[in-house]
């Protein structure tokens, strides 16, 4: 079976503003992701992981290189194959939760049976009682849960998640992480998950793609080798700590160089 996602030497260049030099966000990144895999993109701030995710999902065109989803080369959004879950809830504030689902499915071009479909997705995350609420009436945790449910309702083979739990407290993160793991095991979706949290990456991923500081390259790929569904108990096993330490060692230099780069930029600015 062909891999779900093939990233082929993708580079991204952002033109500099007002005469500043161009910024190279990604440098010849190549990656193959198998069907049903949970892959984490892990790296320091600014390493281009969100950029890579947007390129994979067709929201951004790469400066060079290409991405294939299945057999298709990505040239724009692929709403029937790829669903995004962003860091902040992208529920439209002027519609209720259920109306949001209807509109999202309408975007996708699916109008039949939307109500049952939406309620089923909401029930999966336990939010079925809030279908008639407006987003402003919900807490951040609830909104992100519903955000995830919407990602599920879109029924795509691939889920791209950009630090979806970053704004949540530790406990909610663990619960939602567990839900995600269960979902993966049940549906066999392919998930690409961006995070800067080491624990989260090890807890959730089948493989962890550790990225360098800007310009982003793949430093190393670490396999976790623990079957899904995973429970938080996995965190207590020695295997977990080993992998986590491995990641930390890889990242430590990258984080340091990011901090040095920031310091240099600041000194250049004030000097």
């Amino acid at each position, binding site marked *: 079976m062909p891999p779900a996602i093939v990233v082929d030497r993708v580079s991204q260049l*952002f*033109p*500099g*503003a*007002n005469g500043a030099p161009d910024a190279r966000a990604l440098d010849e990144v190549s990656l193959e992701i198998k069907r049903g895999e949970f892959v984490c993109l892990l790296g320091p701030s600014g390493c281009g992981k969100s950029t890579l995710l947007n390129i994979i999902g067709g*929201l*951004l065109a790469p400066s060079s290189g290409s991405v294939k989803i299945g057999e298709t080369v990505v040239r724009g959004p692929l709403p029937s194959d790829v669903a995004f879950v962003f860091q902040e809830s992208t529920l439209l504030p002027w519609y209720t939760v259920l109306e949001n689902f209807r509109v999202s499915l309408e975007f996708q071009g699916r109008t039949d049976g939307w109500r049952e479909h939406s309620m089923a997705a909401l029930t999966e995350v336990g939010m079925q009682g809030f279908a008639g609420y407006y987003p402003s009436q919900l807490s951040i945790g609830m909104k992100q849960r519903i955000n995830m449910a919407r990602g599920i309702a879109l029924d795509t083979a691939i889920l791209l998640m950009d630090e979806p739990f970053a704004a949540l407290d530790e406990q909610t993160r663990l619960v939602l992480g567990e839900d995600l793991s269960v979902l993966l095991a049940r549906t066999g979706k392919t998930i690409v998950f961006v995070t800067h949290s080491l624990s989260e990456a090890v807890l959730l991923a089948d493989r962890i793609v550790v990225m360098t500081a800007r310009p982003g390259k793949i430093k190393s790929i670490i396999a976790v080798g623990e079957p899904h569904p995973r429970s938080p108990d996995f965190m207590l096993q020695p295997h977990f700590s080993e992998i986590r330490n491995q990641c930390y060692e890889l990242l430590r230099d990258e984080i340091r160089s990011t901090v040095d780069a920031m310091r240099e930029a600041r000194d250049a600015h004030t000097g």
Partner: protein
Amino acid sequence: MLTPANAELRQTSIVRAIQLAVVVAVFAIWVGLTSSHAVNALFLPAPLAVVGALSRLIGTSGFWGAVGVTTFTTAIAYAIASTAGVVCGFFIGRSPRLTTAYRPVLSGLFAIPLTLFFPLFVVMFGLGPSSKIAFGALYGFFPIVLNTIAGFSGIDRLFLRSAQSQGATRVQMLRYIFVPGAWPIVLTGLRIGFFITFASVLGGETLSSASGVGHAIAHEGDLLESPAMFAWIAIVLSVTIVLNLVLSVVEKRAVRST
């Protein structure tokens, strides 16, 4: 999607070109309508006529008289409005209870057209500058007091508690927290208040007065002297634009220094 930075730069030149075109077009339309007599010269006098009226106007004793009255009236009205506004705003804004008590009333009053009360001022103070001083002071008072309340009541209580725990005296808290914290908003209120006072004085002079720039405009209108009326309007608009620029710069500088 991504917009390259150079596209924004290119757009700026297009923007400037469009703006220049608009100004030129407006002027061209003005000239066109008046020279072809498509519009009654009463409603829209020719540019040259206005320029002629301007040159005949500026420097005359009538001109300086009117300008003097309006300037004097505005200055006094603003002095009253700003003093009263800042003082009241300070005492109200410092107290959460008074803020809750009075802020809604003041905003509510400000939302109604206070010009309704102008006839009362004329009845009480007559046609002279006093009625305009009172009216201008009243109208200008509101944005100043409201902004001052907002400035002082908006100080984060956390800063105050922190200072208190460090043993700060009332005067020190005033000097190092209240005043610097409220200052930018108060200053904005003072700027807005000035223009409202100025506009109110002009309005009062236009409605009922025997002197001042507003009266001059209304008077020329009565005499159907459109070029002269337009000349006065042009003077007022130019002065307003200049004042606006100057006060905005002053406000920015004053805020930066704290």
